[in-house]
């Protein structure tokens, strides 16, 4: 593992993906071209063979930013080279993990960065049709993307014979209808096909049989936005950011009890403490931290003793959690954890597609028990029962939505058990949660 950037380094970190965000008209093609936009795509399409692109991306170590952190180049290489079927790229912009709002920034403020990444991907894999599946609620992002696509068509960056090569590409924006499960890659494919957003059985994996049963690459917005920079500034430069196993910059979405919540671009591997205290200005009122959710609501909670965990794929994995979508939710010591967990439970209960038995029934069951505990009617055996139900939900379903509830729930039960037991013994909601309802100075 290479040296993690020093705090001073990260503070001085020059943003890559968000460099031009906040500038006037940053979403327009003219602005994008004014700072070397589409140069990378142009060079890649003219000078690189598809295999060379895939190799370069493999070497860069770019990992999927959607949550699982799967190596991007490796994913592309699973797509069969010789096939009679058309191939598809589906860009996952259905950002719906609670605590995550990073793709939104790119879609709304720098959509051409994404389109350039799409161009590079499609050239590498031999794709002529790409879809951007954007969350339905993100209306502004969809409008900006559509406008950007129109501009790109007008300039000849999309359409037929792009950059004078035998390379055609059409990009379509598809707005989802507001289901969390449609952000799961196969659920998204079902939805895009016009069906109910049921995740599909794997294998076959989308790279072999995905959208319309054709080979399909599914990549997150942020992943694709990284590509132009890799080809503009080189693999070595890219690998110099972040850690050995998690290279590159990352957009961290910090929310909850911090003084300056927002989207921050920092190298992967930045310690959680630094992110909270140095980047986001600490906790309002200098209160203590009760727990941190490091990677969106589906990631297991971290306790206050785990703030030195490096925010990288491997660092959080070692800490028993996951980087996920890097949606960092900070909960200070006024937080009623049962309330927080109930909120997570409610979300996954509501968003379970209901296809597999353990998830369909388990999420609802867990929520009902948590609700009862929260209402002050908990029993001492409830903690073990929830833990046992969560055990039964993990790894028994088609997709990982049931794990996404079970894992954070189990982490809370394990790490904060004495507190929960105290709450149950009290038989009424935590008095501290009354405190939490007071408006936070950060808001």
């Amino acid at each position, binding site marked *: 593992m290479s040296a993690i950037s020093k705090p001073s380094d990260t503070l001085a970190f020059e943003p890559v993906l968000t460099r031009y965000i906040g500038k006037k008209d940053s979403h327009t093609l003219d602005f994008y071209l004014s700072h070397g936009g589409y140069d990378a795509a142009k060079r890649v399409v003219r000078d690189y063979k598809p295999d060379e692109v895939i190799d370069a991306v493999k070497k860069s170590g770019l990992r999927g930013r959607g949550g699982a952190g799967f190596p991007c180049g490796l994913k592309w290489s699973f797509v069969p080279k010789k096939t009679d079927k058309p191939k598809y790229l589906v860009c996952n912009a259905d950002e719906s993990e609670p605590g995550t709002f990073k793709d939104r920034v790119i879609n709304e403020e720098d959509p051409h960065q994404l389109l350039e990444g799409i161009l590079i991907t499609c050239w590498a894999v031999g794709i002529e049709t790409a879809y951007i599946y954007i969350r339905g609620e993100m209306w502004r992002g969809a409008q900006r993307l559509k406008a950007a696509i129109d501009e790109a068509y007008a300039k000849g960056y999309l359409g037929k014979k792009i950059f004078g090569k035998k390379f055609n590409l059409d990009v379509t924006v598809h707005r989802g209808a507001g289901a969390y499960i449609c952000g799961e890659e196969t659920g998204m494919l079902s939805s895009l096909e016009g069906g109910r957003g049921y995740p599909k*059985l794997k294998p076959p994996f989308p790279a072999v049989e995905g959208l319309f*049963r054709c080979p399909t690459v599914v990549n997150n917005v942020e992943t694709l936005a990284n590509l132009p920079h890799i080809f503009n500034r080189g693999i070595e430069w890219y690998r110099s950011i972040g850690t050995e196993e998690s290279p590159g910059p990352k957009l961290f979405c910090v929310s909850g009890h911090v003084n300056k919540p927002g989207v921050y671009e920092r190298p992967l591997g930045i310690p959680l403490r630094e992110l909270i205290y140095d980047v986001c200005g600490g906790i309002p009122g200098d209160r203590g931290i009760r727990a941190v959710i490091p990677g969106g609501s589906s990631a297991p909670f971290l306790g206050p003793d785990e703030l030195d965990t490096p925010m990288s794929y491997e660092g959080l994995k070692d800490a028993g959690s996951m980087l996920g979508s890097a949606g960092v939710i900070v909960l200070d010591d006024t937080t009623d954890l049962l309330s927080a967990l109930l909120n997570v439970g409610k979300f996954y209960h509501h*968003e379970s597609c*209901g296809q597999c*038995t353990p998830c*369909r*029934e388990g*999420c609802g069951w867990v929520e009902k*028990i948590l609700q009862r505990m929260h209402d002050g009617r908990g029993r001492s055996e409830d903690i073990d029962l929830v833990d046992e139900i969560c055990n039964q939900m993990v790894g*028994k379903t088609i997709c990982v939505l049931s794990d996404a509830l079970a894992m954070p729930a189990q982490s809370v039960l394990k790490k904060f058990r004495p507190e929960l037991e105290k709450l149950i013994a009290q038989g009424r909601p935590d008095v501290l949660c009354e405190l939490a309802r007071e408006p936070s100075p950060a808001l």
Partner: protein
Amino acid sequence: MSAPAKTVETVKIKVNGKELDAPKDQPVLQTCLDNGIYIPHYCYHPALSISGNCRMCLCTASNAPKAVISCATFPAEGAEYTTESEEVKKLREIILEFLLINHPLDCPVCDQAGECDLQEFSFRFGKDDSRFEEEKNYRHTKKLGTNVRLYGNRCIVCTRCVRFCEEIAGDAELCVRERGDSNIIDTFPGIPLENPISGCVADICPVGALFVDDFVHKTRVFFLESTTSVCNMCATGCSINVDTWQGEVQRLRPRHNPDVNDYWMCDRGRVGYKYSGAAERLSRYEVGPARAGSSAGDGKAKAGPTDPPRSTRAPSDFGKALAAVSDRAERVRREHGPGAFAFVASAWMSVEEMFLFRRLATTLAGAVPGEAGPATGILAVADGEAWTPRVGGAFKIDSDRNPNRKGAEMLLLGSFISEPFSVLLDRLESGAIKFAWVVGGIPDFSPMDRFRDALGAISNVVVTDILPGPLSERATILLPAASFVEKDGVFVNGRGWAQRCRAALPPPGETRTELDLFQELLRRAGERERVLSAQGVYAELAAEVGAFADTSYKTLGALGARVTDDEPAEREPTGREAAKR
């Protein structure tokens, strides 16, 4: 028996330590079932695409870190699968506990109780207790279409019905609505479940969520006695089970037969037993005097269509009625010769009945049918609408509404009937016919006016029928008949597939089956020594009629066999093959 089996590529796997040759393209679950290793499952159905949502068939595999669902696992060479272990037992208990938490457990009022997979698996694989103490969810109960009723609370959302409508019926009327544990089967607004085989969703429903409306709150299924038989409502001849209780048919259910109907039957056929239990069923032998008036042979028939002849028949019994038939036939033969007879069979008779009726015609008239001999014809109902599922499969609804037209062609064409129906009509109207025997047996039959009116003017009209109607009204001798749920016999479907129909109930009242009736008459005429069972008659028939040679009730078995190659049935792909997974 069926089409020659394709060579199937197999791999060697081990299940619970036992070595098996597993077909490569077949899920491990199916291979296990085929080899007598039972794995409980809900969403998997061999005719439907694989959905993998119920998680009931979880097992462990040597090549997978986590438990796998055997319905979506295809065998890997050398892999070992375990379906009987503490771990798998625990997995099944978990899934069953989950399935029951929002289930109302209303077995005492549920019609599925007794044939419910949820009940059965809970008993065999589940725990005796649940840790669920919260409130259960409530989901809707409604009619999805004319024939199908949904009890949403009992549904386990295995989506078999949804996939059936999409992959077999092809109309895709059903969908899953809502999310998570509020999931509920529903139709789209304004589009009810009205495809012609909608009732099948109730058959494939593993729990008590979907019912054919006809069967709701009728009886408990564990009281039912089941008889394998064949549907009589069209020339497809679906293999069915006739379920009876207390002397009444309670329902018909399709029976799996890959060469005829797969797992399905149509909604029309499903209630095709109704007439057999009708209160007005003919059940009494009646004999009246020969009709005068026309015996002089004054040409055209007199009775008009609005004026059925007033019945002058008096109640009689089997023996007396048969004696009357013999006597009248004898007299007519003596006075007018064989040309004064007419015999009209029906495409609703079994092949045994046709075989006997053919012989009886010759015996009674004293000459083989033909110009100089008795006039002959066959009654059949007009074609209806054919329907084929949009997505392949062996099943279809035949446009031919007659269950045994093929059998009639094979047995009666040439030997019994050689002239078109119009010739029969001409002869009936000519006044030369003094003795006509018409076999009906067709529910809701309305014969053409000419035929009906001609009958009304003939001196001796023997009618064998099941329901009162235009035929029975014109009979001078009425012989009640057995319906298809009351008789044994073989029916040949439109594709030349012979299947056994079996009696599930005795015929009503004092009625004897036509098989007995025809044989008894032949016996009295000295043509046969004993009255045989259907099986015995079939053996005679098989010895005499080439197409049926080498077949017997034993070789026909429960699924039947092909007896003619007229229309070789090509096996179209079934739902799964067509829809892949």
